[in-house]
């Protein structure tokens, strides 16, 4: 939506050209979906970073966060749902856990979108960390309920730390792709 607004304000004559680029946009709209799927596959690969000490970061969450913030049209709810479902099936967990968690996190992001748009990157990063913290508590509660034991919370801390730590890198890569998406359109 942000993109649309920019168009309306600055580039009135662009409107006519947009019909031709709808096709391009449709293809570019697949970028976040494909990257989230790649993130799910990465979660499955036996990467064993630093001798298995560092868990694989949850990249799909970063993808959902970034694209929900800057281009929510590219990553609608059904896609987020399907990504979560794919992760549920491939990781062999209880079906619906990640689907609901990803949906909820996207809803959270979309609620706070107006605040984060146009802010500096480290503010956005802080926002991401807060969302990650909220999600990690939810996942912990959900899994504790499902296994009917109080699971050790510290176990999950590492993965979230790694996920937060890798976000700036991912965000640079994503903004590059995002800029390309805008340029192709113009």
């Amino acid at each position, binding site marked *: 939506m942000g993109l649309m607004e920019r168009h309306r304000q600055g580039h009135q004559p662009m409107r006519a050209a947009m*019909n031709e680029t709808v096709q391009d946009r449709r293809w570019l709209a697949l970028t976040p979906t494909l990257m989230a799927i790649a993130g799910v596959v990465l979660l499955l*690969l*036996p990467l064993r970073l630093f001798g298995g000490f560092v868990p694989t970061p949850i990249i799909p969450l970063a993808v959902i966060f970034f694209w929900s913030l800057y281009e929510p049209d590219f990553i609608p*709810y059904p896609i987020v749902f399907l990504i979560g479902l794919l992760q549920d099936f491939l990781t*062999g967990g209880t079906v619906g856990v990640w689907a*609901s968690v990803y949906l909820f996190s996207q809803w959270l992001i979309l609620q706070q979108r107006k605040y984060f748009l146009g802010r500096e990157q480290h503010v956005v990063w802080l926002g991401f960390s807060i969302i990650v913290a909220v999600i990690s508590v939810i996942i912990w509660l959900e899994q504790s309920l499902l296994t009917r034991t109080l699971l050790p919370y510290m176990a999950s801390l590492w993965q979230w730390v790694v996920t937060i730590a890798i976000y700036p890198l991912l965000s640079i890569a994503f903004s590059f792709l995002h800029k390309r998406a805008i340029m192709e359109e113009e």
Partner: protein
Amino acid sequence: MEILGQFRREGLGRRENRRLGLIFLMALSFSMVLFSLFGARASVFEKAREALLDISEPVLSVLGSPIRWVDARFGDLSDYFNVLDENKRLREENSELRAWMHEAITLQRQLDYFRGVLGVELPEPADYVDALVIGEVDTPFQRSMILNAGARQGVENGFAVVQDAGMVGHVVTTGKSASRILLLTDPSSRTPVVVEGAELEAILVGRSRGQPALTFFAIRDPEGLEAGQRVVTSGAGGVLPRGIPIGEIADISDDGVRVKLFANYAGTDFVRVVKYRFQPDLTQVENNGADGTPSAGPSADEGGNE
């Protein structure tokens, strides 16, 4: 047309649709959680899991090979620096193992003799399926691995999976060409074990990244437990064979008994799936085994596996 489209995309109706869609999808995923909790394993989800495992098998195999290559190069590098120490350690271990070998041969002879005297009938030794670890789920609350062997290679749900050092986990989902194993450290993993020396039966419970804990059946205090005692599968329940080494008791405290696993997960690339079927009656095995088929009749097997 374009402008109309814009209005439809950004107008109030679209926002309302989005919200409805979110509520619908949230409800759907929650009902899926409930369904998978109460709808048993043999549900439509299990079929989907199997299908997705088979689809992901070639992808993971291809993507995993460069990772294994890099891992191997790092292994080479550390081997190069440790070669002298390693050599010394291996030589010591070798001489120790030689002594063990002779003792094992002597014991095997004695055992054969006693078996002959007593006329014991033993089940066929277990068959193995060798498999490569192509995937690993290392999220805090899920610990599982994906193997590149499935039903086509003879893998079935419930089979134990071992590594050279000890047990790794057991098969929970079997596709045609890939299978998923639940590791002993997964919070939902429960394995019947026996503590050697103390002869105590217990259940090994996964604790995610921490060491798995032992839960005892009896209310009385578990006596005779000491750190360093070996923990092996007990075979209770008939799903796993008896005597697969799992680990040793690491720590006994008020919080419980923790077990240090023999298997090193971070270094697990190749594993063996133990094809084991519970044989309720050994004489039946003998009768069936005479014509060369090791299976003890399908009906008896089904009963044993449940």
